[in-house]
């Protein structure tokens, strides 16, 4: 059950935070509120009137607006067009654009959200797009605004700007439901915090009467100790393990040069869409670089997945369900998918099922992969277990390099802690780890050095960033943002 007998109330002019780890049911709850899903039982009342279920139009008419985690904007249209979509009845022959534009500008002035109505969405930054999403809701007269994980895609400076906007909205009498799993933000912006765990509402706290530690324990139900990164043991003199020079690929990656030494975690930060996906693909052997090269222990690697696998590069892709595993195949078949041609798993073209299943069993046991049997299809596992399988099959061979792209995205706290501890263990064994992540907390906790991707160029790597500095670099401002050459 995604939501189990939840009872909530929202006062006018308050910010209520919905806190919970991934899979707790926060998104499901607000989707029911907004009409994307129909609840099996229970009722919702908005401003004293019952809300018809399963009808986003009714929710909008009742004054509920939602900013989704994945924006619902048409990239090829202008800001004004996006805001107009769905607001005008189909039977009207003429579009009242002038009135709409005036109303849009008035709304944006009222709430301090500056936009250019004629700008194309595709040309806007993520923070600006989010502003358009908020304006979409305000334009329709929303008095209740739901924000689903709004800060996941923003730089630190943009987060500050968003919080200022929320203050303005609240001053005007709007009520806000703010969904997040980030404790700092929740405590700084909300008045009350509702904690969801496994579909149930387990606690309601006043923000100024609780602490991060209490909220964390309520979220998870037990104490989780985050793994701690020990200082790097192997320093300096040995040659770099992984060396990337002048890499350009896929159009979006323009220039990346960096080196990762033995026993080091190299973090790559940056807002999504600045070339990290292309860099990750090139580092996995999936994309042929248009220039530059990748060297492992001195040897250049050919741009083929098989070459990278053979060289001992472990790869954890961003898209675990659709790229990391073949969902319809069995778990044991996925466990050996990268090495299915090895002599132990394939002799004269015949598969050695026994050996393969043994290896799969080893991985499942060693890496705590919960599944309903080795023969079950891989897609039957939860996201966290799929990731553990992918990580396990990569790490079980003691790789010398690991490429991890958003490895803990969407996972619960327990799985995140496990994956982090595995990466740190690999680091202690001398592996070179590249960690690409949009989660600054993760990077600061795990990485020895961090470089920032902006518009396809990788900045210099530093070990001592401040939040403000890295935020500026992510937005392309400041000297730290310039490429190393």
């Amino acid at each position, binding site marked *: 059950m995604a939501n189990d007998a939840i009872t909530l109330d929202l006062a006018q002019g308050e910010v209520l935070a919905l806190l919970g780890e991934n899979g707790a049911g926060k998104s499901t709850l607000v989707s029911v509120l907004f009409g994307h899903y*129909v609840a099996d039982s229970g009722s919702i009342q908005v401003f004293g009137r019952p809300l018809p279920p399963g009808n986003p139009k009714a929710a909008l008419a009742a004054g509920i607006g939602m900013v989704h985690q994945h924006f619902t904007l048409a990239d090829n249209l202008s800001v004004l067009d996006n805001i107009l979509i769905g607001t005008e009845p189909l039977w009207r022959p003429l579009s009242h654009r002038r009135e709409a534009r005036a109303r849009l500008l008035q709304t944006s002035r009222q709430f301090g959200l500056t936009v250019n109505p004629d700008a194309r969405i595709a040309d806007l930054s993520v923070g600006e797009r989010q502003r358009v999403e908020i304006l979409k809701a305000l334009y329709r007269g929303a008095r209740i605004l739901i924000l689903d994980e709004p800060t996941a895609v923003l730089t630190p400076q943009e987060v500050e700007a968003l919080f200022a906007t929320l203050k303005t909205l609240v001053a005007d009498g709007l009520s806000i439901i703010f969904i997040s799993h980030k404790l700092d933000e929740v405590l700084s912006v909300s008045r009350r915090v509702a904690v969801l765990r496994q579909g149930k509402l387990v606690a309601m706290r006043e923000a100024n009467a609780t602490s991060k530690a209490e909220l964390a324990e309520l979220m998870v139900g037990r104490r989780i100790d985050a793994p701690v990164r020990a200082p790097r043991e192997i320093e300096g003199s040995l040659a770099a393990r992984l060396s990337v020079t002048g890499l350009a690929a896929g159009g979006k990656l323009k220039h990346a040069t960096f080196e990762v030494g033995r026993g080091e975690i190299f973090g790559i930060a940056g807002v999504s869409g600045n070339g990290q996906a292309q860099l990750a693909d090139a580092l996995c052997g*999936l994309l042929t670089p248009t220039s530059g090269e990748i060297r492992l222990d001195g040897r250049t690697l050919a741009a083929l*997945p098989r070459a990278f*696998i053979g060289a001992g590069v472990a790869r954890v892709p961003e898209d675990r369900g*659709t*790229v990391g595993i*073949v*969902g319809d195949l069995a778990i044991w078949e996925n466990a050996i998918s*990268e090495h299915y041609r090895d002599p132990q798993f394939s002799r004269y073209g015949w*598969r050695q099922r026994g050996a393969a299943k043994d290896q799969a069993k080893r991985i499942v046991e060693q890496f705590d992969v919960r599944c309903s049997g080795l023969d079950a299809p891989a897609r039957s596992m939860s996201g966290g277990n799929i990731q553990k399988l992918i990580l396990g099959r990569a790490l079980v061979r003691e790789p010398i390099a690991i490429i991890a792209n958003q490895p803990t995205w969407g996972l619960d706290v327990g799985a995140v802690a496990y994956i982090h501890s595995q990466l740190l263990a690999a680091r202690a064994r001398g592996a070179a780890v590249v960690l690409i992540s949009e989660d600054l907390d993760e990077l600061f906790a795990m990485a020895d050095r961090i470089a920032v991707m902006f518009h396809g160029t990788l900045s210099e790597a530093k070990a001592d960033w401040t939040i403000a500095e890295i935020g500026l670099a992510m937005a392309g401002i400041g000297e730290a943002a310039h490429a190393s050459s």
Partner: protein
Amino acid sequence: MIAIAAPFAAVAFTLIACAALVVWAGAPVGHAYVLLFEGAFGSRFAIAETLTRATPLILTGLAAAVAFRAHFYNIGAEGQLYLGALAAVAVGGGAISAPPALLFPLMIVAGAVAGGLFLLVPALAKTRLGVDEVVTTLLLNFISLLFVSMMLDGPMKDPLSMGWPQSVGIVPELTFGKLLERSRVHSGLVIAVVFAVLLWIVNARTTFGYEMRAVGANARAARFAGISVNTVMLKTALLSGALAGLAGVGEVAGRAGYLTLDMSPGYGYSGIVIAMLAGLNPLGVVLAAVFVAGIIVGADSMSRAIAVPTYLADVIVAVSLLSMLVATMLARYKVRWS
């Protein structure tokens, strides 16, 4: 479970839906269907006819199943079938003098190779240039038939055929032997069933089968894991074309004895229906092929007894494809009425 229930549900629905057509033709429904069933399976002769029909259908069904599973939509089995038959005639028509023990396997291989190479062209176009294989394979059917027509009217024409465009006959030593006396069932059936079993084994037990299944299920993930997707696609295309070519060999060397332009009443296309009914499973293809063959043979026999046109068979086969597609889609969703 769904994989087994869906085709039966589809067939049941088809028979009910087509009963309406029988009523429209003015015949009693129950009687018509009884005649259909008896015509397909009701006597030794009926079963033999059904099995004879099923032989090429098993092979074209396998051709479609193999290709479709890799998401390579081979609509050209008809053309590959004819080229396979043409190659068989070229080798087995008496033009080459060599011991039959050598020529017999050579004839079969020639048919398979002809079909396989013919599909290689669209396969390369897809992997290298991204050209849609539905379009290329479909249009190549016409080219193949026209080519065969040209050969049958020209270099490969039987001089004794009195002007009719047909090929020389396959030399008697090289024709497929009869499995059953006084019937048309020939050893091509054995070849077809053997290939179905072989294909099942390849899918389940071999490395190539694993590659085919991985590429078919998720080409992106397969590529990530180091499988060479294009190579697997090309190998799959060769296999699919070869199977369709073998269907042609079986028809010309087992049933007809010589090649004419009307040898195949759309076996290549029916193979697609059969593959879908079988859920792309090689062993299921054998059952589905026997079913479709039964419908065709039974409708033939039924139409001779009562006034229902034989086209009913085509309609039943087509409706069963549509029902199967709907059944597999419905199996994935739960419909809730609000």
